[in-house]
């Protein structure tokens, strides 16, 4: 044995790759990002005969071009990291399209074993696949599987290990293009020979250069092969009606057609379950109501079940704070230490943990719907509406979820494959007022307005937020992330019974990502906010936060705000709920809630109150949201843009509304 063996899992999206990954590694897995990329990387381990095997889950892709980050990541791993074996997972019920990736993998490495998954579904749909014949045609082992029942996994592991250790040799099928293309490939291969090309297979690289694959071109340029590129671009175009971008895939699909003819017997194919379900679920008129029903259920269950849990956690932390405070003071700890531990650290940790029930429950429900295959249909149904606003159909769910909490909403944008679509979805999400902000809004509205006016005020705020979502969506698409509107092209996988194991692992992952990444940042900043609100003076009136509020008062006065509102807004960055508590402390005379309401209504006119509502709804996302934006975009720049534009937008709207209101004599 020489060193740890590495297995890479490759395959199209929706083939059951993560089910196989979970079956192999169980809970021994680690979720991170590919170095320098926003693409999620999953690694795991398992042991067999006391030998530790590493499993790397490559991103699900249909091809291995340089057009998407996922595809680049997958092919770079196969080429550069040279895994000991690549397990290529096929969906047997979808074999034609799946073999397209297989052939491309075979062009890169001969250490391949094909896992033919979902053979049960294929059979039910009338496709009988002769695995042995398929294996002979492809020149690599083919292992039939039903991953959801764990059947065939042992055989797959054994075969993969044999290949990894070199005990089993394969003779992968050679792909021959037509004579004109082959001639060009040969020529380019000869030209490439003198260059040192980091282990890239020359034939493959030659094909990619013909296709003008950007990464391949870059590689050759770097290796000093500029002349080769000039020679290639000087080559005559192919005879016939199609160019190289069409000829290469056409050749692959030709070969696939012949393989399928020999290895697959299609029986009379009746109507499948997916056909029947799709007829209802994506129906012209029924599709949308059903979608709202499903989303309603997801949110209903998430928020109904999480509210008592959140209260429980909140109460738990309050008890903990009380206990810690009395222990610390009775043991004679200094007041600053007491404050730091009780109001800084414990309150900060509590502030993070309170979100956990929403995140766990939501992602549990989300995983069920996603695994079942419905999520792709939801995007299909919604795309009609979202498209008009320049957004992808899959942006809808995260937006809706934002009304509950922006944190899981931003995590949920992971379903968007295109980076630009995803960035836009992340950037506009904070404009949707979350539950906490809606709480602040409802409270302030009820203090200043009543009856129909209150309803109209609330409604106007919601409409403004929606308008801003779409306005910013269009602006971001146009100016910040320009480029062609990414075309809507998405596979709709067959419906399936979601596997409980996959759902639990997925839910656990999302929970732990939140606690680990967001937790550390949130706790640190909570401590800073605690410090600013309590020092140097004895209370918030004489704190750094108050000084900052007074410094910012001139800016606030443009919107009719005094320093106390500025302090409340600053405190609200930690958690939006604290806006109210802070206002309570600052405006209350005597500390009662009646005193607070009297104090604040005496100090603010309805116009200022409305401006405040608008500004607090838009200005900077809360700390937890900022932390998750950083985590999900992997970039300080985009995090900065999210904070900056919301701040600016709030300021502009605040000044405008207050100014116009005053002009109209409402102030």
């Amino acid at each position: 044995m020489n060193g740890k063996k590495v297995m890479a899992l490759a395959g199209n999206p929706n083939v059951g790759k993560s089910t196989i990954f979970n079956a192999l590694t169980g809970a021994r897995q680690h979720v991170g990002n590919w170095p320098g990329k926003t693409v999620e990387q999953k690694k795991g381990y398992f042991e067999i005969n006391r030998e530790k095997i590493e499993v790397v889950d490559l991103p699900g892709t249909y091809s291995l071009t340089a057009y998407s980050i996922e595809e680049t990541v997958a092919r770079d791993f196969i080429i550069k990291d040279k895994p000991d074996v690549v397990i290529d997972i096929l969906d047997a019920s979808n074999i034609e399209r799946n073999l397209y990736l297989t052939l491309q993998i075979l062009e890169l490495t001969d250490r391949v074993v094909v896992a033919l998954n979902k053979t049960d579904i294929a059979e039910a749909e009338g496709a009988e696949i002769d695995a042995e014949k398929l294996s002979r045609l492809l020149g690599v082992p083919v292992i039939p599987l039903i991953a959801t029942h764990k059947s065939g996994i042992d055989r797959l592991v054994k075969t993969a290990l044999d290949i990894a250790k070199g005990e089993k040799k394969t003779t992968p099928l050679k792909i021959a293009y037509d004579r004109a293309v082959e001639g060009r490939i040969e020529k380019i291969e000869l030209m490439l020979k003198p260059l040192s090309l980091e282990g890239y297979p020359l034939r493959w690289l030659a094909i990619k250069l013909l296709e003008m694959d950007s990464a391949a071109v870059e590689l050759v340029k770097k290796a000093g092969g500029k002349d080769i590129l000039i020679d290639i671009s000087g080559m005559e175009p192919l005879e016939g009606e199609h160019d190289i971008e069409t000829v290469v895939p056409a050749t692959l699909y030709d070969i696939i057609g012949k393989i399928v003819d020999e290895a697959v017997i299609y029986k009379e194919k009746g109507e499948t379950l997916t056909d029947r379900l799709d007829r209802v679920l994506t129906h012209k008129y029924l599709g949308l109501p059903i979608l709202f029903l499903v989303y309603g259920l997801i949110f209903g269950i998430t928020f109904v079940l999480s509210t008592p849990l959140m209260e429980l956690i909140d109460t738990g932390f309050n008890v903990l704070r009380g206990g810690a405070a009395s222990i610390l003071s009775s043991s004679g700890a200094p007041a600053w230490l007491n404050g730091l531990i009780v109001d800084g650290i414990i309150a900060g940790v509590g502030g993070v943990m309170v979100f956990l029930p929403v995140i766990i429950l939501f992602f549990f429900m989300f995983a069920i719907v996603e695994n079942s295959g419905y999520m792709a249909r939801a995007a299909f149904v919604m795309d009609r509406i979202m498209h008009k606003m320049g957004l992808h159909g899959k942006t809808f769910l995260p937006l809706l979820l934002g009304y509950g909490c922006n944190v899981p909403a931003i995590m949920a944008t992971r379903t968007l494959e295109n980076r630009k679509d995803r960035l836009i979805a992340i950037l506009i999400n904070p404009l949707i007022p979350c539950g906490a902000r809606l709480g602040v809004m409802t409270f302030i509205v009820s203090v200043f307005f009543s009856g129909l006016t209150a309803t109209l005020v609330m409604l106007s705020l919601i409409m403004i937020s929606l308008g801003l979502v779409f306005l910013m969506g269009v602006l971001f698409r146009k100016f910040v992330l320009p480029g062609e509107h990414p075309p809507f092209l998405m596979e709709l996988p067959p419906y399936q019974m979601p596997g409980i194991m996959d759902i639990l692992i997925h839910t656990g992952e999302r929970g732990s990502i939140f606690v680990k990444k967001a937790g550390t940042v949130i706790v640190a900043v909570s401590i800073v906010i605690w410090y600013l609100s309590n020092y140097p003076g004895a209370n918030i009136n004489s704190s750094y936060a108050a000084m900052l509020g007074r410094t910012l008062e001139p800016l606030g006065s443009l919107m009719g705000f005094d320093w106390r509102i500025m302090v409340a807004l600053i405190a609200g960055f930690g958690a939006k709920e604290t806006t109210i508590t802070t206002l309570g402390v600052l405006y209350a005379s005597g500390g009662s809630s009646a005193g607070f309401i009297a104090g604040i209504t005496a100090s603010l006119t309805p116009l200022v109150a409305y401006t405040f509502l608008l500004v607090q709804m838009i200005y900077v996302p809360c700390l937890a949201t900022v932390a998750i934006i950083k985590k999900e975009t992997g970039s300080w720049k985009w995090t900065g843009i999210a904070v900056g534009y919301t701040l600016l937008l709030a300021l502009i709207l605040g000044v405008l509304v207050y100014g116009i209101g005053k002009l109209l004599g409402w102030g």
Partner: protein
Amino acid sequence: MPPLPLSLLSPNQKASVISVSGGRGLVKRLNDMGFGPGAEVMVLNRAMSGPLMVMIRGTRVAIGRGLATKIMVNPE
């Protein structure tokens, strides 16, 4: 029947792809998803507007209407 863009193909009518037009990346991506010349395609679902649901090489694919206008097909 004369050739027409995929976006105008009636539901449940089988057709074969003649050509795909557009930028290099788009053409490659459509080819990768199976929309190459000769492929058999059928529209499963289409509303007045919005994306189409089509069957291509045994897979259901949702495809934006704009994109579907770039694929010329020959109805059988």
